[in-house]
């Protein structure tokens, strides 16, 4: 069997269509950023350096940024802690069914944070009315922190679990022979998973820093909303871009620092041996902490589901809400399917470059990871800057704009998801098929496609689910008279929680969770194939 690097090097790159696809990927993903950069350059050319004055934040903006950063750091710390506790418990699940089912705990990852905000604010009000707890934070920073923590906790769990699963079983065994399991976990397991935990914590900080939907629902001003407000007030794309520099700097640093870790995780082959063939014996305090973490993870799933079901009250209301939003649901599905249909082939073209040992994958990685650091409103503003121009085809104000926004935001994630699959494709299998079957197309259809199909399904599901919940960019680019489901919910949320909002949120949760479950099914189906080439 060829090793990883050889395998990727051997993947033929002579196909000119692949390079066309990569060019298109770069254009669609980086076009908005390039447009914003050009707008800044144009501003400097016409107005001189005074155009950059907006980069100097006012005292109010400085305080706002400090508060937003504090919130994001607190969310990063708490969600990572929950992640570590849950993942260390889930890590030792040994049965095959249990090992698969634990990933289903993360099914609500793509549910937009504002759905959690609605659910938790209802729970908070209920608790307040029922127990009359003094000082229960129903609004403000504390409420925003709690809801962000709950909404992002599964991401913390996912990163921690990926990190712990990456620890070589023999490393843990060597520690277990010398010290109790609790010490081995703390002194060996967690430090070895450290890079993954740090990357997860960093991304959580970025996500919290860039999200304004939750704070705005709890009547908190955060720095991210300044970007949106600046653009709404001045319609000046360059000013909005320049105003975002503190968030961009932090986000870029985090994302670029964690790129090697994400690359390593995506390129890791699945392990066949188990770390915990004999279950760990952990001290009672640690077991209780793990239970606490799992309890919070269960709350993270159950509170939105139960609250939304009880808010919707009847099946009839759910159906009525779904029917009333049928246009938005259809539009959301249409946007998601189109975004996936474009993102997945482009991602498939880029994925081998991400893993290539010979063509400096660092550049491709920087390109693939950078969009994750760009606040969603900036992507929307960049798209408007490109397409709201007389020289461009009439795309602005059409349904294509949300599709382009989704591609710009999520095509890189499709490429990263596909890397894991492409990485496992042994080129010897393709070469063997080529000797027998001359047609490149037929080899692709009969050999390559079945082997990468689970990855294609997972990538499509990721794009679909994330597009369904996308708010920041869609809010700016949605065409007049059309709205995605998430836009309709977000607008309704500002008028308070009604059974219609509950029903719509439930529809959204069902759509996203259903799509996520399809992805999980694709992964399980794919995992039945024994990777690594000829047996």
């Amino acid at each position, binding site marked *: 069997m060829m090793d990883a690097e050889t395998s990727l090097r051997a993947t033929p790159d002579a196909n000119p269509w692949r390079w066309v696809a990569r060019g298109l990927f770069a254009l669609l993903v980086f076009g908005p950023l390039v447009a914003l950069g050009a707008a800044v350059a144009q501003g400097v050319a016409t107005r001189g350096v005074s155009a950059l004055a907006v980069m100097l934040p006012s005292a109010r903006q400085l305080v706002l940024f400090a508060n937003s950063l504090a919130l994001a750091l607190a969310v990063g710390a708490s969600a990572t802690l929950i992640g570590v506790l849950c993942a260390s418990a889930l890590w030792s699940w040994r049965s095959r069914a249990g090992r698969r089912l634990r990933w289903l705990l993360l099914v609500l990852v793509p549910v937009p944070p504002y759905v959690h905000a609605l659910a938790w604010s209802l729970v908070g009000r209920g608790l307040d009315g029922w127990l009359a707890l003094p000082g229960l934070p129903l609004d403000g920073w504390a409420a925003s922190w709690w809801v962000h923590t709950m909404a992002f906790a599964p991401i913390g769990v996912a990163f921690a679990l990926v990190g712990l699963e990456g620890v070589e079983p023999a490393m843990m*065994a060597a*520690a277990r022979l*010398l010290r109790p399991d609790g010490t081995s976990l703390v002194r060996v397991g967690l430090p070895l998973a450290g890079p993954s935990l740090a990357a997860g914590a960093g991304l959580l900080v970025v996500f919290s820093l860039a999200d304004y939907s939750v704070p705005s629902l709890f009547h908190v001003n955060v720095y991210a909303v300044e970007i949106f407000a600046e653009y709404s007030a001045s319609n000046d794309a360059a000013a909005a871009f320049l105003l975002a520099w503190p968030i961009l700097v932090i986000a870029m640093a985090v994302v670029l620092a964690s790129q090697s870790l994400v690359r390593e995780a995506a390129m890791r082959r699945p392990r066949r041996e188990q770390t915990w063939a004999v279950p760990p014996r952990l001290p009672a305090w640690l077991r209780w902490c793990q239970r606490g973490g799992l309890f919070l993870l269960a709350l993270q799933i159950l509170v939105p589901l139960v609250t939304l079901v009880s808010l919707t009250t009847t099946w009839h209301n759910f159906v009525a809400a779904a029917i009333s939003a049928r246009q938005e649901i259809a539009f959301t599905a249409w946007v998601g399917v189109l975004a996936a249909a474009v993102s997945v082939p482009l991602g498939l073209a880029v994925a081998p470059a991400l893993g290539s040992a010979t063509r400096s994958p660092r550049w491709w990685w920087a390109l693939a990871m950078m969009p994750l650091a760009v606040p969603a409103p900036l992507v929307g503003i960049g798209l408007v800057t490109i397409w709201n121009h007389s020289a461009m085809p009439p795309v602005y104000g059409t349904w294509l704009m949300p599709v382009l926004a989704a591609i710009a935001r999520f095509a890189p994630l499709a490429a990263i998801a596909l890397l894991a699959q492409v990485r496992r494709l042994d080129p010897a299998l393709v070469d063997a098929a080529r000797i027998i079957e001359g047609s490149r197309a037929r080899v692709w259809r009969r050999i390559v496609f079945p082997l990468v199909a689970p990855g294609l399904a997972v990538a499509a599901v990721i794009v679909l689910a994330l597009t369904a919940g996308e708010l920041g960019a869609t809010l700016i680019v949605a065409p007049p008279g059309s709205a995605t489901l998430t836009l309709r919910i977000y607008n309704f949320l500002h008028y308070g929680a009604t059974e219609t909002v509950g029903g719509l949120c439930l529809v959204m949760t069902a759509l996203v969770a259903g799509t996520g479950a399809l992805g999980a099914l694709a992964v399980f189906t794919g995992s039945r194939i024994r990777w690594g080439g000829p047996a």
Partner: protein
Amino acid sequence: MIEVRGLTKRFGGVTAVGDVEFTVGDGERLALFGPSGGGKTTVLRLIAGLERPDAGEIVVDGVLVSRKGVMVPPHQRRLGFVFQAPTLWPHMTVAQHVMFGLNGMRKTDANRRLKALLARTALTGLEARYPAELSGGQARLVALARTLAPSPKHLLLDEPLANLDPELKERLLDVIDETLEGEGCSLLYVTHEAREGARLAARVLRLENGRLTGDVRPEEERR
């Protein structure tokens, strides 16, 4: 003494180890040799407490440590285990590796033990190095020193010299030999090369398809 009685382990429908019985006396050196996939590593992992047996039992120094329903945790068995790969923790220095197993010892005693072990395994001067800064041979010696730190009564070595060139292998076998002599612990050495087993052990058992198929005379193998 390690007593292995009727030990059986299955993975799915495959019997990796079937009804294996042997003993390793105090201070005795025994080698298990056989082809790859024969169940040698599984036997060691069962003895160390890293796998549960499906049948049979393991007794270490008169204490029942493994049987269906009985599992003494690995760190309480007073066994040392060196894996095929050095399995050094990349975030710890050589000294930290050795000190990891010296928990509960007074600091001065622990430092004394550290110095003695490093001297014995020819690692003096490398205390502050991280695994990435060690050669393959040095890494294997660190793994040995780490294992010996808490003074195990019995040492399990799972092909610790695999993939090394013959010259280095010979040199490390000498170091292991001298270290075992100094530490006075018994040895269960797993290898797929009978010669290598015979070089260290007084008794060599052959394990094939999970079953013991007979003794090999070490003196014949040494020739």
